[in-house]
């Protein structure tokens, strides 16, 4: 009986959290009109959310591309199909690894930072202070960060994929002696703008939306103490990672299903 009551309470609490999350989302959207009038706020956030994530994205992209080059070459050469290395590297990056790994890195680098920042602002009463200054903290602080996350993710994923293709080229063509012309021309012929690139972009927009939303909600909803903030930061990374991987499966099934 006790167990059942506990389960019920937990269920209600998570439903309430879900409700608060959606209300927060609506509230953030309502701040977009204000943001258009003050693009400076957005630019500052694009810098801290997007530009500052670029280093880790570039380096990871390079290494993931290089590993793909190695593994791909090993498998393809067994069938004598080394020329297809370019296609393999590019397709796996654009369709899957680009959006997914970028989103995972983004959750770790930018998402956790957003949660900690908002959570600390809450714990130190800065958000309350803004409210009492008649400034809506959600519109003023959260909306620019949300839009910045949404815009940054596809761009970061594109950078990741592009660098990854170069990484694959370095290993495949530079090290293992795949024909350079074949690497590029096969890629050009087989990668489809609609099928591959658009779908990859759609994925990363969805991931950007979800990751930033989770990060901001966790920060805004956290218990305003140092422990609360640290838990919220952990939750951001865990929930984002799970959401990314589940959504990736669903989106892939929908896009490449038939």
């Amino acid at each position, binding site marked *: 009986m006790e167990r059942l009551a506990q389960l019920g309470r937990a269920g209600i609490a998570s439903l309430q959290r879900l409700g608060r999350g959606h209300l927060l989302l609506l509230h953030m959207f309502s701040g977009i009109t204000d943001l258009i009038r003050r693009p400076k706020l957005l630019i500052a956030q694009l810098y801290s959310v997007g530009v500052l994530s670029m280093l880790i994205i570039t380096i990871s992209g390079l290494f993931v591309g290089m590993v793909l080059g190695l593994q791909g070459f090993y498998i393809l050469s067994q069938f004598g199909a080394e020329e297809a290395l370019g296609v393999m590297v590019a397709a796996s990056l654009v369709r899957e690894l680009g959006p997914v790994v970028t989103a995972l890195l983004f959750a770790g680098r930018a998402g956790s930072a957003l949660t900690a920042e908002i959570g600390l602002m809450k714990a130190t009463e800065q958000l309350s202070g*803004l409210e009492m200054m008649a400034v809506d903290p959600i519109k003023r602080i959260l909306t620019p960060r949300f839009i910045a996350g949404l815009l940054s993710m596809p761009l970061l994923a594109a950078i990741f994929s592009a660098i990854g293709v170069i990484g694959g080229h370095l290993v495949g063509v530079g090290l293992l002696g795949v024909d350079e012309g074949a690497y590029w021309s096969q890629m050009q012929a087989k990668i489809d703008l609609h099928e591959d690139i658009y779908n990859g972009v759609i994925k990363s927009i969805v991931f950007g939306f979800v990751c930033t939303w989770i990060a901001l909600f966790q920060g805004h909803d956290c218990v305003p103490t140092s422990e609360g903030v640290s838990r919220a930061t952990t939750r951001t990374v865990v929930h984002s990672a799970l959401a990314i991987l589940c959504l990736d499966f669903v989106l892939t099934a929908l896009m490449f299903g038939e």
Partner: protein
Amino acid sequence: MSQQSDNSNEPLVKIRDLRFYRGERAIFDGIDIDIPRGSITAIMGPSGTGKTTLLKLIGGQLRPDAGTIHVDGQDVHKLNNKDLYKLRMRMGMLFQSGALLTDINVFENVAYPLREHTRLPESIIRKLVLIKLEAVGLRGARDLMPSELSGGMARRAALARAIVLDPKMIMYDEPFTGQDPISMGVLVQLIPRLNKASRLTSIVVSHDVQETTNIADMIYVISNGKVIAGGPSKQIANSTSFWVRQFMDGLPDGPVPFHFPAKPLEADILEKAAAHKTGATP
């Protein structure tokens, strides 16, 4: 400003039968408070009675479970978001923690409400900010970041920010805590001066009985969810009520509890010991 504000006999803040619960615990159990216009009203009470909570209720950041709070004739908790924000523009609040924005320096913190709510040219903003900073003695600290301020300095900077829009009403949450005797003296003079100069209404939450009785026109003492005394400060200071005397004179024994509600100490200790003996978890 609406026509209500001309109605100068009405108190600026009118609290009726306010009830507020944190879980099972009643923080306010039906209190009535009037804050007259143009006065300095002190709210006193032991730590943890809900003085900060009261200010947050007045500012509309928390919702009461029952009862009403009218500010300038408007029911704070019935206003829509837009009107609530409009009302808050006429309220200044000094937070207990200061609540300065940590990513901008002192000058920008004080300028923040001006930049958000007015379209004043930079030169005028600069002038206004420097005047307010001068008033709290921090003109020289304007380029420091909030993390480089001491607690007392942060609170004074926050005070400058709270008054920069020239509000109609200011709520001070513990303005004197952490101030040395000199800045304390300055603040004790500053609060009445601000009040007179612009016909402000001030609410001061404080433990510093001496300083507060000196500057306040009215005093309310809250304890255990009730107003245990309220009236002109002379009357309260000379009150013979046990409750009030205990608080004003700082006596540990009396009707006002020093302890957070709990069972008797002996019972608590014995229970732990018994639990240890039997090896059960308490």
